[in-house]
């Protein structure tokens, strides 16, 4: 029986802080309230105050921290850059937050074998940058890639716009070094494919720091394509845009990215980034195809034709890499751009089969009128991964409550259409009580069993992923001050 642990007892704190300081040095242990405040949040607004935040430099440091925490029965929460959107890095019940900002070295790059070995604190984009000159990159590209860390990506199994063709984090991670809650170190997978035995690497990726603490990651590097064609298709109706998505797939084309933004969102983005998006359109698709020159140009031509058949008003092609960059900058900064026009917003993350996009858009529109809310839509349309952004003012508790209700209905609808409650943001603190919407009691019992094998006392990242039973089928986001996605964070 696992116990839901609490944080540090007041009588323990001085002793624990002292031990941590002796282990890591005074500069690498935070424990004063004003320092801890910075680590109360991640990209979700629900907060939790840790008792201490520590910054190890090595796997050995992590082992010692885990050993200390186990002895003192204190929960541990691993944290990368804190950009996660489901509360995965929040110390829900206090305890020690292990920050990986000092474990940020690229340990080895081996291009002939298409591999890199990194520490978990390496920033996603920095890895691609390190191998760019040689024509390689690391494929998963979450929108926060300039800040988020690979350790956090592994914990959340992060995606990104280009995962449509290349897969999410789990498809690019081959091996891990992991510190388990009993302070033992295990190595899963390796740098070669197909190591015999259960795929513990695959199980660990996406486990949100509840099964172990990852201290080293071996990833696959991909070769940059010869040519990339970026297209912007402009539509006068949302329905035409969503129909185009399925039509592209039906034509046998797999774009490397297929993103959609509705008119409301793209106007906010255009005002913020001047990416050249048409201010008067109802929706745009941002589509990318790549490969050898012949493949990219053929696919681009076919996509132009499909867009035309589905009543696109205009299809533009980026002519230079600068134009391409600009189109993507708009997309990747979209969340921030919406922050300019609404005091708060709440980003949802749901998945549906891509052919159900047209009816899902109608449903989301009906939620706008039912709850009197403005909802911006920005999707990884190609893989049916929706990110509706619900605009509100977190100072208004009534509005906050309506946002949570509308978001809950949207997520439930995703599941009804054969989809999932999260495509890439993770379950974390936000959706663990929603897990029974997707999984049966038998399914969840198996997940609990898995957790009990790795984390029998529940000391690693307590209160995440699995339902606690304290709430029933609800999203957990703070209403009121500092509400969901509050931009003041």
């Amino acid at each position: 029986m696992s116990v839901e642990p609490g944080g540090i007892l007041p009588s323990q704190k001085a002793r624990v802080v002292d031990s941590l300081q002796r282990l890591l040095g005074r500069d690498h242990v935070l424990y004063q309230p004003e320092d801890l405040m910075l680590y109360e949040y991640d990209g979700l607004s629900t907060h939790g105050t840790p008792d201490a935040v520590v910054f190890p430099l090595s796997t050995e440091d992590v082992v010692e921290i885990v050993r200390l925490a186990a002895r003192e029965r204190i929960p541990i929460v691993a944290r990368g850059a804190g950009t996660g959107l489901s509360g995965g890095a929040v110390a829900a019940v206090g305890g020690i937050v292990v920050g990986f900002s000092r474990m940020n070295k690229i340990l080895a790059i081996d291009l002939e074998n298409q591999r890199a070995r990194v520490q978990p604190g390496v920033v996603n984009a920095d890895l691609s940058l390190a191998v760019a000159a040689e024509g390689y990159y690391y494929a998963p590209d979450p929108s926060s890639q300039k800040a988020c860390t690979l350790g956090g990506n592994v914990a959340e199994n992060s995606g990104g716009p280009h995962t449509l063709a290349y897969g999410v984090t789990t498809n690019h991670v081959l091996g891990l070094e992991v510190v388990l809650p009993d302070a033992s170190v295990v190595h899963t997978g390796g740098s070669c494919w197909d190591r015999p035995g259960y795929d513990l690497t695959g199980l660990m990726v996406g486990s949100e720091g509840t099964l172990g603490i990852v201290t080293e990651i071996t990833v696959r590097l991909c070769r940059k394509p010869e040519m990339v064609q970026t297209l912007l298709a402009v539509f006068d109706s949302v329905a035409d845009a969503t129909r185009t998505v399925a039509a592209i797939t039906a034509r046998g084309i797999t774009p490397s990215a297929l993103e959609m933004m509705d008119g409301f969102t793209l106007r906010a983005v255009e005002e913020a980034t001047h990416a050249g998006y048409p201010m008067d359109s109802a929706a745009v698709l941002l589509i990318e195809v790549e490969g050898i020159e012949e493949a990219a140009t053929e696919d681009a031509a076919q996509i132009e034709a499909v867009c035309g058949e589905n009543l696109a008003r205009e299809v533009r092609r980026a002519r230079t890499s600068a134009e391409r960059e600009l189109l993507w900058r708009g997309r990747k900064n979209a969340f921030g751009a919406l922050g300019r026009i609404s005091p708060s917003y709440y980003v949802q993350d749901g998945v549906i089969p891509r052919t159900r996009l047209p009816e899902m858009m109608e449903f989301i529109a009906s939620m706008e009128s039912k709850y009197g809310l403005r909802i911006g839509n920005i999707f990884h349309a190609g893989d049916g991964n929706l990110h509706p952004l619900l605009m509100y003012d977190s100072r208004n508790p009534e509005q906050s409550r309506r946002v949570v209700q509308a978001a809950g209905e949207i997520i439930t609808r995703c599941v009804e259409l054969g989809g999932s409650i999260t495509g890439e943001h993770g379950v974390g603190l936000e959706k663990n009580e929603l897990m029974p919407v997707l999984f049966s009691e038998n399914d969840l019992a198996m997940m609990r069993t898995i957790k009990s094998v790795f984390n029998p006392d529940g000391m690693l990242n307590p209160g995440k992923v699995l339902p606690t039973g304290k709430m029933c089928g609800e999203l957990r986001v703070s209403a009121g001050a500092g509400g969901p996605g509050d931009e003041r964070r």
Partner: protein
Amino acid sequence: MTNAAEVWLAGLASTMGGQQVTAEPSTCAALATGGIAPHCVAYPTTPESVAAALRFASESGLAVIPCRNATKLPIGNPPRRYDIALSVKELNQVWRYEPNDLTVSVEPGMKLGDFQHFLARHQLWIPLDPPGGDRASLGGIVAANASGPYRARYGAPRDMVLGLSIATTEGKIIKTGGRVVKNVAGYDLTKLFVGSFGTLGVIVDINLKLFPAPACRSTWAFHAAALNGTQMFRRKLLRSPLNPLRAVLMDEGGRRLAGAPWSQGSDTFDIWIEFGGSERVIRRSIAAAIELARSVGLEPREIADDEARPGWQRITECNPPPNASGSHEVLLKAALPIDGVEEFLAHARSETGRARVPLACFAQLGTGIVRVFLLPEPPFENLFTLVERLRGAVVGKGGSLVVERWPIEMGPGVDSWGPMGDDFRVMRELKNVWDPHGALSPGRYVGGL
């Protein structure tokens, strides 16, 4: 048959609701592994009856090996016990097929060849060319995470399975993952089952991602006088923007198995590359590959379609070669660093040369996976040492070597899987949790699990 066996056989038949259970000796013998045949073969027709059979077996202390066409049965150590062969032959339906979503649900007994045929109606396919070929069942392919040379471009079953339904030894059916191409809800139990060789549960339903089939294909062979030529070519190819459907390096033994006898020279090598896409894409790819090949002294040759198709089949299916001279065959799968295949081939050739054991090699370019056939003749005295030496070379490079076939006439083989790492204790705990009574393929998997 003992009285005890008769009693549990009757119990199994009634548990499964009168579905077919046979103890007919030749049927059982056909599903033997490691020299051990089961007492009976059960053919459940529903996922529920699979679950009921597993629960019955687990509670009765019986051992079950899930199977279909027996293409994976030779892989793994001899079972400690083997009472029931659980054939998923009757579970072979496709359902929830959504061509525009590129997703499908399919039962585990569906054969790969039939499935590809089904998908071809919509110009779709599942890009897998595993050992066993068209005869391999999807359940077996997923349970073994089996792949072939398409792996470098498209990935393995691990990358294509969106979700599974699993019958457990508790008699339950659990669901992992989902039906959509992107999903991070909860622990990724799907990964745990893919490649677990039927030791944790029995797959009763598979949700798969589908792919558009290439419009055209073309195969070329590139002939090299030595391995340093193939290495230079491989490095250039992998650094180039070319993205062929598959590429395999073979020695003269491999060439013979593939039925490609035109290349000459016993110490020479061929690389087969299949290009796919539109005609224009293929034309450009071939021109670029020829240029790369000539720059390092390789000689290109087009393989006609009617030769390419059966050639690739023989390369990928890994069927036992025709047994003309009383020789036997061991099949090894080495997983190496991508850049280590030529060195391994040279090493394998010198080791087998010393032991006077003929061999045939197929090395995938871009994954580092090499399949090695050893074709020894009796007596098989040095074989054990030979395989251990080859394994030592692979493990020394950070890879693994799996014995995928070791004929029982050759006596006890080496451990099929090789040494385990420091994460093995976690694997053992997981096995204990899912299969506490050791009902599923006991002793067959890594470390004796």
